[in-house]
């Protein structure tokens, strides 16, 4: 099967025939002088869902934001180590973060649709990347909204404000917005944490669909969610990548005592 990883004493190497999509090597992230991520290394194979779990404040959000250079937006954050996408270092000097974010999309914790119409939200990406034709934009909007399982609910009111949608619909719109850009990797930072159970299960079903075409890395605070949707799971604790493996293995036979403590609920 697959995967991942490294730091020999933490976990054995799992062989994979899948292509490695993202390869993170010795990644550290600092907020000022505080080191939020400590030398994490990890490989993400293509067309799978990888979940990042850990207690709040463990650095999983910080980690995922390093994967499409979102930290560039904050002045006092420093990233060390390498992240490669298809073998190409995204932090290399001549690489433009904008192109990287085009290829690696991101869905955030709270739905953040722009204060525009549903249609304009869906086609925001294609528009900024130069698509002009109304017909083409309409096709993209329909395809990505269908893909995000939102089309039937909004097809009659595409010109209404996206802010009128429910929280779950807004989040699916945000996913549609990312799909419209046709990225290769989709990063999700606790995409269901602000949603009710029904909306959450819709998002989870959607993620299962998405991995057919995309590589998905998802941060979640819910172990059940990680168990339901992911192929691989990485466990973070206090900025350290403790363990990584097949989701089944992580949950049923964790190798690290700390992982086991967390899985069995000892960290709350």
């Amino acid at each position, binding site marked *: 099967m697959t995967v991942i990883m490294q730091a020999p004493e933490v976990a054995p190497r799992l062989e994979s025939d899948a292509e490695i999509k993202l390869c993170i090597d010795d990644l550290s992230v600092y907020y000022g002088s505080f080191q939020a991520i400590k030398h994490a290394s990890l490989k993400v194979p293509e067309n799978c869902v990888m979940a990042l779990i850990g207690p709040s404040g463990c650095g999983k959000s910080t980690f995922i934001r390093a994967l*499409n250079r*979102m930290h560039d*937006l904050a*002045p006092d954050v420093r990233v060390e180590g390498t992240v490669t996408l298809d073998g190409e270092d995204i932090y290399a000097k001549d690489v433009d973060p*904008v*192109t990287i*974010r*085009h*290829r690696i*999309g*991101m*869905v*955030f914790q*709270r739905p*953040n*649709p*722009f*204060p*525009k*119409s549903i249609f304009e939200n869906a086609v*925001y*990406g294609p*528009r*900024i*990347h130069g698509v002009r034709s109304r017909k083409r934009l309409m096709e993209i909007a329909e395809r990505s909204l269908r893909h995000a399982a939102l089309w039937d609910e909004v097809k009659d009111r595409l010109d*209404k*404000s*996206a*802010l*009128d949608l429910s929280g779950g619909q807004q989040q699916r719109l*945000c996913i549609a*917005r*990312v799909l419209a*850009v046709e*990225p290769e990797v989709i*990063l999700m930072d606790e995409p269901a944490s602000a949603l009710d159970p029904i909306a959450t299960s819709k998002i989870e079903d959607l993620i299962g669909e998405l991995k057919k075409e995309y590589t998905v890395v998802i941060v979640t605070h819910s172990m059940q969610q990680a168990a339901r949707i992911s192929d691989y799971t990485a466990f973070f604790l206090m900025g350290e990548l403790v363990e990584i493996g097949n989701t089944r293995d992580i949950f049923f036979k964790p190798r690290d005592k700390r992982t086991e403590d967390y899985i069995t609920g000892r960290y709350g």
Partner: protein
Amino acid sequence: MAMMATAGSAAARNTAAQRRTMNSLMTGLLWAAALSMIGLLLFFVGYILYLGAPVISWHFLTSPPSEVAAGGGIGPEIYNSFYILFLTLLFTTPIATAGGIYLQEYARPGLFTSLVQFCAESLSTIPSIVMGLFGMLVFVDLFHWSFSAIGGALTLTILNLPALMRVTQEALQTVPRTYREGSMALGATKWQTIRRVVLPSAIAPLTTGIVLIAGRIFGETAALIFTAGTSVSVGHSAYDLGLFHQAETLSVHLWYTHSEAVVPDVTKIGNGSALVLLVMVLVFNISARLLGRALSKRLTGK
């Protein structure tokens, strides 16, 4: 309970009563201060209305001013006030919003940013009469434009630049960080994010701020006396678009008739002009609010 009511607590009860009295007294004073401020404004508005209303007529609002005889109007002055306001906004809005965007979205903390900030703050405290003298040196003396609408407008451009930059920065601050992240995460450049998401989301407070500043520009006086001049028609029509013609505004006219002019009906002109100026302030304030509300309603679809 009985144990508590010892002799010692009589003193405590006493100070508690004193504290309550003091509290009522002081909060009462604060209420009085606030209410008297509202009263003051209502009184001003009422008084100016009382003085000015009898003066206002179609003739007064549309006729040219008179040099020596009574019966002059303020038509060209109203026109000039709007004309200079228009020119000023034309120059100051792009520069100030651009500067505000740079400071809010692009600038990283450092020497340059603190220098810009210090200059903006200093610029905003320079007395407008001093700014007027600077405008005179540059536009009247150096450029040989004499007193001109454009000279006045450019002086007001510099004068209002820091306030409008501030308004821009504050408007941009109201836009949630998540909008920016959402756009950037879709592969938008910073400028695309600003132009397509951030600015449209900030349009309501931005518009409100610009209209409020427009109200101040409309009433600005000291910076215009020595730059746009105190006359409306020297060798040209009073209502033309001549950038290089003298352009006395309404507020300048109010000051000028009082302090320099020889017409006998100074009081009447002053009362009427004061009323028109006050009404314009109210109009700008109300439209700023209505416009802001309408825009934010359209934006959120609610």
